[in-house]
């Protein structure tokens, strides 16, 4: 079968090209023709169709995401901002951290194990491509209802996939979320986060400068992974079905990825890399166009040189293949031998497939004939940008009016506490987290069930200064809040992640986010999206933490039923002396228990309304960013002074759940009395900007002074000790009872 060449495209200007089958609109196709001054070849069409897809071009979201830049707070810590593979922040002492969260939602529905596994693989390569050593992963998960059949298929597979891939890479899993809601049935969310460390003077970028430099593809061989669409291009006639059987599922090889990690680090150390890019969605198309566009501007590639796992692959398919565990590097001719020798040491196949030029053109050949000749920037950067229409959903107003005020409130608060503690979303996540290695690399200071993961910065990195610092990370997101008010919902996600970082004693520094929504072509979904982005950008500005990167996942819907809008926010913080970190929960008896922050009657979108009444309506708890910031200041300052023995933030389920979890952490009970007039509100309201801390009695006054200075409400609730949680005059439950309620739920469903 002959291949469509540039020459042939010139000779057959009217040949029908299957752009629609590749998801391209007529006007987009017309633009390609205008750019090239002729019809594209099949290979060129392959490149433009993937590069201009929603996934790669952010065409629906771009106009909104710009706010993250325009509203960004000034931050000295930001070394690399949005637009690169991942953002990089300065964490002091010559060290930098890079982190990002990314979705792999749909593949995880189709094949949960492989989908989730390759999600971890992809985000880890993003971090590697910044020049960093990946040091930990996290996973933020959403599933359908716990009692829905498909959840029993999807969850175990997803968890096993993350477990297998992450464990095999030797990356500790230091946190995440597991949330159940029927809105995610058919559209589970698998968002994976990776964080890496590097010397701040050794950041690598995805760029191909220097004509004459070589382009090397290394890692796994290229197979027919994830090229469902490309098969129409590779078939003899576009209607030919024979080739349309390519797998839509990519299978990961974590062992190859582990080799790639060690190999890349050795390449960086040997200083033989000019530019580097991971291969993710859109594989070779994306890597070559982006590297070329950001470099000198031109590149030649001989596609015959791409090592193939499946020798029958056609060039169009090679260009679109999403085979995992591949990287592309730009290397000076003098360093080629050294580069290849390091790859050989690690058993990583590596092949020179092209060269950097100054022609401004990306030129690819196949069997000696030119099949691609394009200005790379037009594919990488000049994709279509849509101002999609949006409007408030029709029922939004009614939804907000349907407040939880009319819901019957319980009188037996003990039963309510145990019921909430055993509920799908608040029960112990141990069934999931025990499948993740949280210890490997020996730097994990806090992991589950702590509010945030915390790592000591003590990697073996040549030339790096010794430091006492640590980094903390948390991810949060609440789709129910966002459904009620996407602007506030995104801010609440940020608030909670920010607070989770602060309770460990770390100072929040920077933000990543993964925006999971339905179809952008639905104006009501688009409104949710626009509101969420606006909310997050505004809140980041107020809190002084810039967005460094992230990911958008649209089309999470079945038919017209979209998921709850689910912005997931990850916050990274730094603690100067990691030994001063605050443990999670009550570590010992005889400590004062203190509640920080004010409580209001707020049950819209609450876990109680969800569990007790299956109700979603009203407005989410009020966002109070100034209060969050002041609370964080109290927490980090108190930690620095060594005042705190333990902490836990208040979020879903309110004070009642926080107290119970704090008791469960080390099996230490507590006796407390409630500050307000309404025990139900005190225990289960989800007001924001609150945290629970415990401390030695002699430090109590210092803490109250600190709180007074920052205007943070502070209530001495009682004291730790005993085998029970006693809320005086309200309820009493032994720690064993709490544990039995908390720990039985997930094993009861998943075995």
């Amino acid at each position, binding site marked *: 079968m002959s291949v469509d060449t540039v020459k042939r495209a010139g000779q057959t200007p009217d040949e029908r090209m299957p752009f629609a089958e590749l998801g391209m609109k007529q006007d987009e196709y017309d633009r390609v023709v205008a750019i090239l001054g002729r019809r594209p070849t099949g290979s060129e069409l392959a490149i433009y169709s993937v590069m201009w897809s929603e996934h790669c071009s952010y065409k629906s979201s771009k106009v909104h995401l710009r706010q993250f830049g325009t509203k960004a707070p000034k931050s000295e810590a930001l070394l690399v901002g949005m637009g690169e593979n991942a953002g990089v922040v300065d964490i002091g002492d010559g060290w930098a951290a890079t982190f990002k969260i990314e979705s792999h939602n749909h593949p995880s529905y189709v*094949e949960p194990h492989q989908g989730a596994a390759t999600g971890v693989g992809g985000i880890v390569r993003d971090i590697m491509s910044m020049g960093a050593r990946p040091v930990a992963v996290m996973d933020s998960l959403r599933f359908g209802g716990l009692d829905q059949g498909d959840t029993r298929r999807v969850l175990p597979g997803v968890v096993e996939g993350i477990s297998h891939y992450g464990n095999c890479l030797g990356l500790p899993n230091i946190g995440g979320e597991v949330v159940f809601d029927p809105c995610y049935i058919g559209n589970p969310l698998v968002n994976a986060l990776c964080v890496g460390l590097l010397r701040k003077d050794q950041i690598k970028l995805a760029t191909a400068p220097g004509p004459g430099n070589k382009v090397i593809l290394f890692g796994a061989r290229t*197979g027919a992974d994830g090229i469902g669409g490309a098969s129409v291009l590779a078939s003899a006639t576009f209607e030919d079905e024979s080739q349309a059987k*390519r*797998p839509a599922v990519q*299978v990961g*090889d974590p062992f190859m990825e582990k080799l790639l990690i060690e190999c890349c680090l050795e390449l960086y150390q040997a200083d033989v890399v000019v530019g580097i890019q991971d291969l993710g969605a859109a594989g070779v198309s994306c890597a070559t166009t982006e590297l070329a566009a950001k470099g000198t501007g031109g590149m030649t590639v001989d596609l015959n040189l791409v090592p193939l796992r499946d020798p029958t692959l056609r060039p169009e398919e090679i260009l679109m293949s999403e085979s995992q565990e591949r990287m592309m590097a730009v290397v000076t001719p003098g360093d080629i031998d050294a580069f290849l020798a390091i790859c050989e040491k690690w058993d990583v196949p590596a092949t020179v497939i092209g060269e950097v030029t100054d022609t401004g053109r990306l030129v690819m050949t196949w069997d000696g004939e030119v099949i691609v000749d394009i200005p790379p920037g037009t594919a990488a950067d000049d994709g279509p940008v849509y101002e999609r229409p949006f409007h408030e959903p029709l029922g939004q107003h009614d939804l907000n009016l349907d407040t939880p005020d009319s819901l019957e409130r319980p009188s037996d608060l003990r039963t309510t506490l145990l019921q909430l503690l055993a509920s799908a979303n608040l029960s112990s996540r141990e069934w999931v987290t025990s499948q993740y290695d949280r210890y490997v690399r020996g730097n994990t200071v806090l992991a589950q069930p702590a509010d945030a993961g915390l790592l000591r910065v003590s990697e073996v990195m040549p030339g790096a200064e010794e430091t006492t610092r640590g980094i903390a990370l948390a991810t949060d997101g609440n789709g129910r809040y966002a459904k009620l008010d996407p602007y506030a919902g995104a801010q609440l996600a940020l608030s909670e992640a920010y607070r989770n970082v602060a309770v460990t004693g770390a100072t929040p520094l920077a933000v990543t986010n993964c925006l999971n929504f339905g179809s952008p072509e639905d104006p009501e979904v688009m409104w949710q999206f626009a509101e969420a982005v606006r909310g997050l950008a505004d809140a980041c500005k107020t809190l002084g933490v810039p967005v460094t990167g992230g990911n958008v996942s649209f089309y999470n819907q079945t038919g017209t039923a979209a998921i709850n809008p689910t912005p997931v926010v990850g916050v990274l913080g730094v603690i100067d002396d990691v030994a001063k970190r605050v443990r999670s929960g009550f570590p010992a008896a005889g400590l004062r228990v203190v509640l920080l922050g004010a409580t209001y009657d707020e049950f819209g979108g609450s876990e109680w309304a969800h569990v007790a009444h299956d109700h979603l309506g009203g407005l989410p708890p009020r966002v109070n960013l100034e209060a969050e910031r002041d609370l964080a200041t109290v927490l980090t300052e108190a930690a620095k002074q060594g005042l705190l023995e333990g902490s836990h933030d208040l979020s879903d389920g309110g004070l009642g759940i926080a107290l119970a979890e704090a008791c469960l952490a080390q099996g230490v009970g507590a006796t407390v009395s409630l500050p307000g007039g309404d025990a139900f509100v005190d225990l289960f309201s989800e007001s924001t900007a609150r945290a629970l801390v415990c401390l030695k009695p002699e430090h109590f006054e210092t803490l109250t002074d600190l709180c007074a200075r920052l205007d943070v409400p502070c209530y001495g609730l009682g004291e730790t000790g005993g085998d029970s949680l006693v809320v005086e005059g309200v309820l009493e439950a032994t720690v064993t009872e709490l544990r039995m309620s908390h720990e039985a739920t997930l094993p009861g469903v998943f075995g």
Partner: protein
Amino acid sequence: MARVIVDVMLKPEILDPQGQAIARALPRLGFSGVSDVRQGKRFEVEVDGPADDAAIAEVRKMAETLLANTVIEDFVVRVEG
């Protein structure tokens, strides 16, 4: 009592990292002349009755729903012997 065998292999186009790792290791162990290795699963299903058409159809259904992940795997059902 009869034994029905279900062989499950990854579809040919799906990456088989296990098989590849073995294939790469063989030359180092002094085995030459092997061009490829693929690793799959083998199930031995003991059925109560005879391995007649009905039993085999039943095992086939089992393979489809449980033993194989048909998104990425092919399977073959056969009677031992």
